[in-house]
């Protein structure tokens, strides 16, 4: 099967790259081994959140100070602003409406009430532009009875520490009570499926209107809108006060929605998305990749002019650590990782862990290295790249989006 580009990995970076290429008329196939880590994303993108434990206020400026090994440095600090604009537009085209600026971080509110620096946040999510200037003083936190994937106490406490007056109110509706009959499945994503009808939303709106009291703003867990923000907007139209959502523990509704919208957009552009399949090996001719064999397509390998590796980090099995080493499992590409297992981790759980920075080695154009030489038609993007730390630096989603666009440009320009 012949394509222009085959992308291995169907998460944020793979889809972004696929969309950018398909938009320019390429025939693209994405091989996605299951759902992606977007399902752990609460509805925000981060460009650069922290450097050495300090919150970054102006990411574009701070990016200039990053070492050469960081993916941002590879795509060129000067290109970041333009790529960031492009990414924001691509998301909007897919139906993901987010606000924020690459020049100045805003603060997203985490499920535990912590304010974390962010670049883009979904419009309906709670955010703070400046910690000195809160969007409202009096908040009411509407807690869904029997829903345990939002730590309400910690959230309220965190918000209070940020300077809000917070009232917490527990509520339920028939739809919610009915779902709680399940001992295990009252998750954000299941609630979302139950809270779609106008009546179900009206019942929630009634509760809010009754219980919100004097608050200026109403906070709810992010359990509305599986495929778009219509349900949220319907609910907002039924509630007198402004509503904001707060991310829950995963699986995340907002993340799932972003994944779905990107996939729809990609398919609308004519892309093939092979869900539940994964690349298992490749055939090389010198410094070029000729074809990729997948688990499901078996003896009919995928052939393309260009290939993109967007298989993610350890979680997504884009990298594998065994008892002896860290390696890239599809092509056995060169990786930047410590050889000694003792070095992979640190003793305290909240310390920066070395393994977070591991990834495949690339040249200055994000081309993968194998035995010290770049593979001419194989780019790596997103979390599989070495040199960044999504957890401690808050650069995961930014790296995914921007390296995806940069790689697409390289491919289109024949670089």
């Amino acid at each position, binding site marked *: 099967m012949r394509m222009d580009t085959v992308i291995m990995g169907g998460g944020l970076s793979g889809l972004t790259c696929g969309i950018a290429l398909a938009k320019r008329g390429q025939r693209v196939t994405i091989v996605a081994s299951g759902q992606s*880590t977007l399902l*752990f*994303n*609460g509805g925000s993108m981060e460009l650069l959140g922290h450097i050495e*434990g300090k919150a970054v206020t102006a990411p574009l400026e701070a990016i200039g100070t990053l070492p050469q090994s960081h993916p941002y440095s590879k795509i060129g600090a000067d290109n970041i602003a333009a790529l960031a604009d492009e990414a924001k537009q691509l998301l909007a085209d897919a139906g993901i409406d987010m606000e924020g600026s690459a020049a100045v971080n805003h603060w997203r509110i*985490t*499920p*535990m*009430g*912590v*304010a*974390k620096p962010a670049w883009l946040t979904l419009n309906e999510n709670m955010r703070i532009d400046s910690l000195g200037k809160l969007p409202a003083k009096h908040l009411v936190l509407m807690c869904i*009875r*029997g829903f*345990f*994937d939002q*730590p*309400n*106490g*910690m959230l*309220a*406490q*965190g918000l209070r520490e940020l300077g809000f007056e917070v009232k917490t109110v527990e509520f339920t509706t028939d739809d919610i*009570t009915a779902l*709680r*009959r*399940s*001992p*295990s499945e*009252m998750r954000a994503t299941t609630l979302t499926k139950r809270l779609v009808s106008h009546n179900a939303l009206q019942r929630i709106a009634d509760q809010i209107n009754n219980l919100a009291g004097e608050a200026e703003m109403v906070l709810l867990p992010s359990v509305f809108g599986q495929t778009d923000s219509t349900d949220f907007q319907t609910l907002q139209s039924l509630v007198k006060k402004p509503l904001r959502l707060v*991310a829950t*523990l*995963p699986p*995340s509704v907002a993340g799932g929605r972003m994944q779905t919208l990107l996939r729809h957009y990609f398919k609308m552009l004519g892309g093939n998305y092979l869900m539940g399949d994964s690349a298992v090996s490749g055939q090389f001719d010198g410094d070029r990749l000729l074809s990729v064999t997948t688990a499901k397509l078996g003896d009919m390998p995928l052939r393309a002019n260009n290939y993109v590796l967007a298989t993610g*980090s*350890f*979680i997504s*099995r884009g990298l*594998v*650590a*065994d*008892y002896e080493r860290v390696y890239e499992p599809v092509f056995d590409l060169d990786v930047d990782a410590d050889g000694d*297992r*003792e070095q*992979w*981790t640190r*003793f*305290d*759980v*909240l310390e920066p*862990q070395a*393994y*977070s920075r591991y990834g495949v080695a690339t040249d200055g154009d994000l081309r993968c290295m194998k035995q010290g030489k770049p593979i001419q038609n194989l780019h790596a993007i997103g979390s599989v790249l070495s040199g960044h730390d*999504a*957890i*401690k630096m*808050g650069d*995961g989603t930014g790296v995914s989006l921007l390296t995806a666009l940069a790689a697409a440009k390289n491919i289109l320009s024949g670089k």
Partner: protein
Amino acid sequence: MATNDIYKKEYDVIIVGGGATGAGTARDCALRGLNVLLVERDDYSTGATGRNHGLMHSGARYAVTDGESAAECIKENMILRRIARHCVEETDGLFITLPEDDLAYQQTFVEACGRAGIRADIIAPDEARVIEPSVNPDLIGAVRVPDASIDPFRLTVANLLDARINGAETLNHHEVEGMIINQGRVEGVKLHNKLNGEHVEVRCKVVVNAAGIWGQRIAKLAGVNISMFPARGALLIFGHRVNRMVINRCRKPANADILVPDDTVCVIGTTSDRIPIETVDDMRVTREEVDVLLKEGIKIAPSLATTRVIRAYAGVRPLVASDDDPSGRSISRGIVCLDHAKRDGLEGFITITGGKMMTYRLMGEIATNAVCAKLGNTKPCVTATLPLPGSEEDAPSQSDTTKRYSFGERAAIGRHGSLAARIEKDNDIDNALVCECEGVTVGEIKYAVHQLHVHNLVNLRRRTRVGMGTCQGKLCSCRAASLMGELNHDVKSAQKDLATFLDERWKGMRPVAWGDTLREAQLTAAIYEGLCGLDQAVNTQRKEDEQ
């Protein structure tokens, strides 16, 4: 009783140490009508009690080298099957001979078992492969013995519960920092309440030192010297059971020669290293220990080579030098009960140590006998026949599947036996699962928090198995922290507690952080640090605390 009132009372006996031995002693003393207080510096079963195989020895392992211990074991084994049914799983055990072992040892072994009163049946390797499919198929010999699996956390809690039912008081997170000694007589203990930082004195007639390896320090506080020989053993936990039966190597005891099915997991161990007494609090498992455990474990059950290791942990056995050999060369694994009045001229102080988790009840009986002798109490010991709470009547049938999905309820019965009846399950929220790996419900957590002395998530884990499954607390720890914050009306410390809990889980994962365990760790970090910002919150709190 409120903690302050507990301090004010005067006791017949204060037991130092909340391991199985301390708990067993507290129960026995309480059953004989004594006024009892048990104090534990950390949580119940934090020490060697909770850091072993969870193996209910038949005694066979000691039959060749220490016939006396072996005989003790089999006797206690049979007793525990009756009195602690809900903590015991009657798996039976195999002693296997591998091609590298000497098959002649099997005969020596079986004869020694016979002398100790342990049933030991030689079975054909073929039969062993059938009854225990995970066993190394190359085995050349097998002996079947009445080994079993036992849950030391449950066992300890059941003893404490019964002690309390019979009037005892128990305090965890209370460290003994000194003894009240008056004219050659111990009259009480000085305590540090680690939950609120308070320092108090509590009076009694007799103090029993049941502090395991830390007993040397406790003795020192009373001005007496005991020579402990800490023997450290490391173990590995695998993500699920590969074996149905306990599997031992039929040879002289050595490294990593026992594989035990414990609840939902299996455990290989142990290494054995003499360590300096100063290092007994360092429970870090080294890379070398992991390597040895895996290398040897694979010989017992080859599938361990490809089974996920979810944790590593280590414990320290409290071995004691016998008094007639101060050089420490002859170390006893047997029970040592020291009446310091006779030994050191210090009245009102007894040390019970040595022994094994297996023989905790007997140790409790011996210590209680010594206490009673001092106090002139003549009531007989009944702990060998009286079932522990949870084991006293038939637990509701496991196979009773109702129409509703009832995993949590059934898992709770497995854990708490008949006590599971105390867990609320009449509404949907109480039935909701907090820990999905181990089937721990909201109701069970409420029960543990209200009735089982739970002050933090680590306590909660020991009582309920929250966070002990494959994912080591990925979603459940946040749910549980949040719930406990509500139940204890203390949201503020919930985040710190959560971070401490995740750290405690990580300490066990780190030595085995490769493969899926590393993936698990990265996902946990993505959720708690990336998504939730727990690291940021805790760092801010720490800075505030420092200021």
